[in-house]
């Protein structure tokens, strides 16, 4: 194989990997949108908050330490060596479930039957609240997150692929980050688990019923409030997974919340109501972005990666507004 073709494969694979990371974020949006028709602007911040909490627990940070020190004149920062990773992840999940419960009780429950735009505004409010709250709780410094996932380039893959090129070619093998491979495996497991859950359990069936017809769900005795807590908890769990992956990759910092913006074109492409759509949409955006950067970029001076996804999304809006896999309205003829 010629080095040019091998380069293409490398870019393609890296695009897929980047796409999976976008999909992880988009997934959280889809879950909430399907079940309650709310576009949750705070999904990105939820990922950030989950990652912050995880790091804090893992490293043994005292929550609200700045606040406590300011009020009581103390000087506390840590309470010990921190928790083992698994325990920290479980505790973070408990925090995310508590967040979902508080949110339902104090926000969503009071906005029942309001226009979608009002609920959307509420999630914007939530996003800023959570950003500030996370800051207050865990501090605003950039943190590194290490949950023990392998990272760095894979030498094995580099050696394998170097052999594919001709002996005399100036080719040094493909670069693939091991962290991206873990992300892919985790995403596959996550999506499989979610689809099994929604397909084969009574709660999953109730979730789909609510997504289909609120009123009818209410009439058969499904409690919307309970379902919303469940949905937001699952979205919190997905945010935690996204937070772990993005946090391990680029550090836990406030720009992490902006990954929500990257999920937007993915959603437009894949459809707001489809879980497979979020995955495929993410892959297309990821691959498209990387290929465009590599092959069109040099012609226009580079930096295509940042806006390419939005242009693709715009084109899709013109020709297929419901996205690739969005719900078609069932019409009988």
């Amino acid at each position, binding site marked *: 194989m010629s080095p040019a073709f091998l380069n293409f494969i490398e870019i393609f694979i890296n695009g897929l990997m980047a796409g999976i990371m976008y999909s992880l974020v988009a997934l959280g949006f889809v879950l909430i949108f399907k079940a309650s028709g709310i576009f949750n602007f705070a999904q990105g911040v939820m990922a950030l908050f989950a990652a912050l909490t995880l790091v804090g627990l893992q490293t043994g940070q005292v929550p609200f330490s700045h606040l406590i020190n300011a009020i009581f004149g103390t000087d506390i920062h840590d309470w010990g060596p921190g928790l083992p990773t698994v325990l920290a992840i479980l505790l973070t999940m408990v925090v995310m479930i508590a967040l979902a419960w508080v949110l339902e009780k104090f926000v969503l429950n009071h906005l029942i039957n309001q226009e979608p735009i009002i609920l959307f505004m509420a999630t914007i409010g939530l996003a800023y609240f959570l950003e500030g709250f996370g800051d207050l709780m865990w501090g605003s410094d950039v943190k590194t997150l290490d949950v023990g996932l392998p990272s760095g380039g894979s030498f094995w893959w580099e050696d394998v692929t170097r052999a594919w090129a001709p002996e005399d070619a100036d080719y040094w093998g493909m670069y693939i980050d091991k962290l991206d491979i873990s992300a892919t495996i985790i995403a596959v497991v996550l999506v499989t688990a979610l689809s099994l859950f929604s397909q084969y359990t*009574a709660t999953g069936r109730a979730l789909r*019923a609510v997504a289909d017809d609120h009123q009818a769900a209410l*009439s058969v*005795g499904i*409690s919307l409030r309970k379902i919303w807590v469940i949905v937001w908890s699952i979205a919190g769990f997905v945010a935690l997974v996204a937070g772990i992956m993005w946090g391990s990759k680029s550090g836990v910092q406030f720009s992490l919340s902006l990954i929500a913006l990257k999920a937007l074109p993915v959603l437009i492409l894949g459809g707001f109501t489809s879980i497979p759509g979020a995955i495929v949409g993410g892959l297309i955006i990821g691959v498209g972005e990387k290929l465009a950067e590599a092959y069109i970029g040099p012609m226009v001076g580079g930096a295509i990666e940042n806006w390419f996804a939005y242009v693709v999304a715009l084109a899709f809006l013109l020709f297929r507004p419901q996205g690739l896999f969005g719900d078609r309205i069932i019409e*009988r003829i």
Partner: protein
Amino acid sequence: MLQTVDETAPILRINNIEVIYNHVVLVLKGVSLTVPRGGIVAILGANGAGKTTTLKAVSNLLKAERGEVTKGNIQFEGHEIQELSPSDLVKRGCIQVMEGRHCFGHLTVEENLMTGAYTRGDGRAKIQDDLEMVYTYFPRLKERRKSLAGYTSGGEQQMCAIGRALMSRPSTILLDEPSMGLAPQLVEEIFEIVKSLNENEGVSFLLAEQNTNIALRYATYGYILESGRIVLDGVASELRENEDVKEFYLGVGGEGRKSFRDVKHYKRRKRWLS
């Protein structure tokens, strides 16, 4: 101590309720009615008379539409139920089948039926038994169990909606406009099933219907609702013989009003409306 249920007391009693939507629109202006245990009671009336609102006041689905009961009370099995959530009511055995079926279009017929059992906690085996029971009443649903409800016919969707309600093991079903948009033959079929459910399973029915003719043939008692008030009530067979009901709701001229000229205006309007 177990509470003994008085078998002769009405299962559902609505006492002089007033319903207001959005704090301003008064829809029901003092409606009272009773459903005896094991009865089929029909609420009749034209569009916008308040039939659906009455049913939703009982099932407490009103709150989700910003409606509220401002006066009077509703008793189910002798207990006031205004403060209960729809989910609690379903658990107590009172479930509504909404107007326009409202099946879950993206779920299969069988999944639709299973959502009806959501509130039950008596185990998989019993739920499976009830699924078979529903299939014996609605053999058509069994044939179509694997297809998406959204792709089934109107009649099948109505059956699916009733079957779904049955899966909650109700003592009372509030059935809203089961005949809507269905061919006369299918309407007959659905009412036959309602009757046999009433006789064999002991389910009481409160049904809202525009199709006065068929409703009065199957119901034991009827109430006629006009712009939020009950204007007439009585045993179904008597209502059917009532001259006013005949003229206004059954489209049959009474004695002395047989001349074509007297009924012409009414008949013409009826044709456009129905």
